């Protein structure tokens, strides 16, 4: 057979396999290194700090776990959260993340390595990303071969879609969950392939870990049954499927109920019923198969078929009946919002108000996946070529995850692994085809050759033909294709064509690396607790207002001082300022959050009794108008209004906060409800003084704030940070003489107030 370039012929097969496996190990080690290293931008550009919002709670809980041990953590009741209700932390968290850090912490300390718990928490996500790369390698290896596995590992190691949730310091459940997701899927595929109860058990154990770590475990709970169901419907029931699924389901379900936060849900909610249904179906199908193996009478088989269908229908009817009766909880609102994107905004504004629950914008697919996004469909199509059981899994996964990623930005994370796997399959097929030295034989028609990676365009056809011989499933299709394509010689001749394609492919890979590095360093590595900006000379300027304010609270207020803020900042206040908060990112109590929303969106007179009733001492608002920080409370204000309106529709109405023209304004045209709201007053209190008589511009909304700013009668400004991002107000106690605070204030200011009536100040401008 002619070759395009000389191949060494004196190598023994053993040498080749040994070298290949050594190279694989080295490559995997390097991929792990790259995965960890690219996540360290956050530490290098900023510092070793916990990021964002939820990680602060996880960090706080982990500190409790490390300091007091697991039992204390399990029984931890936190009286400072959701003041005055408190929160049973042990029963309302997914403890997997904290437990993992706690185990690592104790292990290192047992080795006399006194590593700070914070550094463990910061470095946990990069460490697990290396494991994710390995798990993806194992998974893809089952789909195609080792080289595709290595490509997939490299892709998932640096792809921004996954880095966005796992940079150093992003100490959130997703940090370990993606590894668990991939490894559970790998065990499942392996169990299905081998028909091994061992791998089924392993899948169940890792499923348990996943349940303990992330609410997204429901994805696995439904993916595996869906795969099983599709295989049954395709007529691919095997005893291997029975073994794999039964061992996974029984152990997995029982173990998932050990997590207190999950409790009895696996046997009582609709989200988990698909798994139970498929389990029951499998038992019936297996029984029928067994009987069929003993009796071959046609009549009996027909009878069994009828029994099977009846059982399925009865089971489905029972499910519906039980749902109506209330024995099985119907789908939760979070689940509905996946099917109807407008559902959350109407019924559960708290969910809709989170930015990561918004539908995904098209550019972010390219931002997060770059060239993988157009290799992805090619990889899925290649899965159809062989269509073994595990390829069916990738296809289903791809379809489901693509849909979910389109619905919610956050679920891009579950799409990313399958994109990496499918793209790696496509890319490695491309490389296999073009790196292969074999040239088409002139004498031989390409369709007759047995080697699948024979030649370029014809390779796919031959592959199809080769794949069709063992499994009869796709034979009709490939016959059709073979008939349609005239039997001409096709293939890759010479080095130039190979060279063109391979250089192009390597170029794509190189640009992918550049893109990933750029996206990681510029978009995904900000701790968001510390902000960065650039000085005119290009050097970095750190804006540290959040910590400034939280430390002020920590050092200047009594430990029992209750701080009210919008729920986004609850975890940070608890973590950094160590003060009780009214609401936090747990968002379990809608009414409580609506109460805060009502206090923020109503006038001082209405808000004051609410504040007093909740023992609020300090109110904290985030204000970005001076600096141009767009994630501030005024921009979130409409959600506070909406959430409050959901509970008190007659007191708070969203339209009141818009101008008659329907605009959302904060300048002098702002609506009265807006101007009188506590949030507006706290944000713009004394803002115009800062500009010394000049026009005072809110840089986020690009609007001019009225010269005469709002006045506060019931609150005192306590602290405002350097760049005005955080403003803290102290709630006044009741007047000693029993007057209401407004008139007391007016009395105290007395004549001065009359002299400085707005009229006199306005005169100079005119």
């Amino acid at each position, binding site marked *: 057979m002619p070759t395009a370039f000389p191949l060494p012929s004196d190598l023994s097969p053993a040498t080749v396999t040994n070298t290949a496996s050594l190279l694989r190990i080295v490559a995997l080690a390097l991929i792990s290194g790259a995965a960890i290293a690219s996540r360290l931008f956050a530490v290098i550009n900023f510092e070793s700090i916990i990021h964002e919002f939820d990680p602060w709670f996880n960090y706080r809980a982990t500190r409790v776990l490390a300091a007091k041990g697991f039992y204390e953590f399990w029984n931890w009741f936190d009286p400072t959260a959701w003041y005055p209700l408190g929160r049973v932390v042990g029963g309302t968290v997914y403890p997997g993340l904290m437990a993992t850090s706690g185990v690592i912490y104790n292990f290192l300390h047992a080795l006399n390595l006194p590593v700070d718990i914070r550094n463990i928490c910061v470095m946990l996500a990069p460490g697990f990303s290396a494991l994710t790369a390995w798990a993806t390698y194992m998974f893809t290896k089952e789909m195609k071969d080792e080289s595709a596995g290595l490509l997939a590992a490299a892709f998932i190691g640096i792809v921004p879609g996954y880095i966005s949730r796992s940079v150093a310091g992003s100490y959130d459940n997703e940090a370990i969950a993606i590894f668990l997701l991939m490894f559970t899927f790998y065990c499942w595929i392996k169990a299905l392939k081998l028909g091994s109860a061992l791998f089924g058990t392993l899948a169940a154990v890792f499923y348990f870990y996943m349940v303990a770590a992330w609410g997204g475990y429901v994805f696995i709970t439904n993916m595996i049954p869906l795969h099983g169901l599709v295989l049954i419907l395709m007529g691919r029931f095997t005893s291997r499927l029975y073994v794999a699924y039964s061992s996974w389901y029984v152990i997995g379900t*029982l173990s998932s109920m*050990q997590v207190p936060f999950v409790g009895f849900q696996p046997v009582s909610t609709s989200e988990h019923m698909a798994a139970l249904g498929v389990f029951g179906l499998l038992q019936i199908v297996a029984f029928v198969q067994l009987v069929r193996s003993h009796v071959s009478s046609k009549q009996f088989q027909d009878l069994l078929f009828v029994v099977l269908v009846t059982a399925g229908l009865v089971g489905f009817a029972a499910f519906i009946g039980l749902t109506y009766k209330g024995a099985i909880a119907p789908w939760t609102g979070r689940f509905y919002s996946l099917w109807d994107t407008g559902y959350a905004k109407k019924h559960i504004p708290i969910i809709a108000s989170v930015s990561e629950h918004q539908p995904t914008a098209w550019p972010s697919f390219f931002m997060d996946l770059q060239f993988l996004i157009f290799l992805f469909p090619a990889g899925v199509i290649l899965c159809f070529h062989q269509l073994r059981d595990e390829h069916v899994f990738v296809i289903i996964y791809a379809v489901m995850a693509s849909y979910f990623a389109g619905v919610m930005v956050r679920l891009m994370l579950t799409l990313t692994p399958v994109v990496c796997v499918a793209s790696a399959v496509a890319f490695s097929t491309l490389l296999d085809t073009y790196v292969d030295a074999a040239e088409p034989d002139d004498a031989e028609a390409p369709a007759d050759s047995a080697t699948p990676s024979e030649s370029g365009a014809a390779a796919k056809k031959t592959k199809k033909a080769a794949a069709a011989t063992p499994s009869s499933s796709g034979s009709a299709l490939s016959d059709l294709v073979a008939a349609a394509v005239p039997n001409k010689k096709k293939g890759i001749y010479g080095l130039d064509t190979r060279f063109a394609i391979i250089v192009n492919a390597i170029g794509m890979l190189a640009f992918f690396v550049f893109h990933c590095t750029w996206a990681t360093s510029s978009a995904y590595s900000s701790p968001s607790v510390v902000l960065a900006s650039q000085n005119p000379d290009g050097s970095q300027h750190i804006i540290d207002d959040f910590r400034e304010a939280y430390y002020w609270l920590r050092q200047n207020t009594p430990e029992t001082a209750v701080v009210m803020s919008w729920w986004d900042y609850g975890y940070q206040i608890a973590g950094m300022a160590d003060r009780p908060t009214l609401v936090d990112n747990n968002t379990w109590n809608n009414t409580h959050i609506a109460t805060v929303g009502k206090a923020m969106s109503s006038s001082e007179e209405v808000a004051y009794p609410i504040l007093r009733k909740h023992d609020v001492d300090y109110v904290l608002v985030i204000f970005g108008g001076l600096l141009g920080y767009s994630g501030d409370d005024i921009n979130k204000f409409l959600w506070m209004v909406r959430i409050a309106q959901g509970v008190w529709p007659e007191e708070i109405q969203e339209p009141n906060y818009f101008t008659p023209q329907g605009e959302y304004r904060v300048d002098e045209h702002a609506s009265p409800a807006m101007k009188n709201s506590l949030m507006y007053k706290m944000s713009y209190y004394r803002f115009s003084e800062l500009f010394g008589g000049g026009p005072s511009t809110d840089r986020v909304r690009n609007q001019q704030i009225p010269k005469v700013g709002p006045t506060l009668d019931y609150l005192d400004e306590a602290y405002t940070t350097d760049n005005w991002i955080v403003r803290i107000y102290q709630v006044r106690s009741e007047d000693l003489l029993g007057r209401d605070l407004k008139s007391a204030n007016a009395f105290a200011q007395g004549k001065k107030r009359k002299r400085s009536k707005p009229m006199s100040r306005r005169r100079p401008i005119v």
Partner: protein
Amino acid sequence: MPPKPAPTAAAPSSAVQTLWKAYNEQTSDRLKFIDAFLVFLMFSGIVQFAYCVLVTTFPYNAFLSGFGSTVGQFVLSASLRSQVNPENKNEFKEVSPERAFADFALGSIVLHFFVFNFLG
């Protein structure tokens, strides 16, 4: 396992009899032994379920773990049965009967660890 006689009136009882006969003739003693265990587990599960429906579900976790242990043991044994069944040799190329039993033992240990933990 002995077949449940199909409840439909159309089922001729002779079919069930042939099935029973075929089963008795074709199945090795080893598999019959496993089948006996499966039948025992099935009755145990039925009794527990009947208790749950008729009397009380009160310690729900205790019921779930008890029922789960029978169902789990049932499917693990059924898996073992299909793995060691000589007819399925083609399907389980990499699972020898010894390996199958080791898998079964490990699965049962893990299962009963969780059962014991959940018992309350």
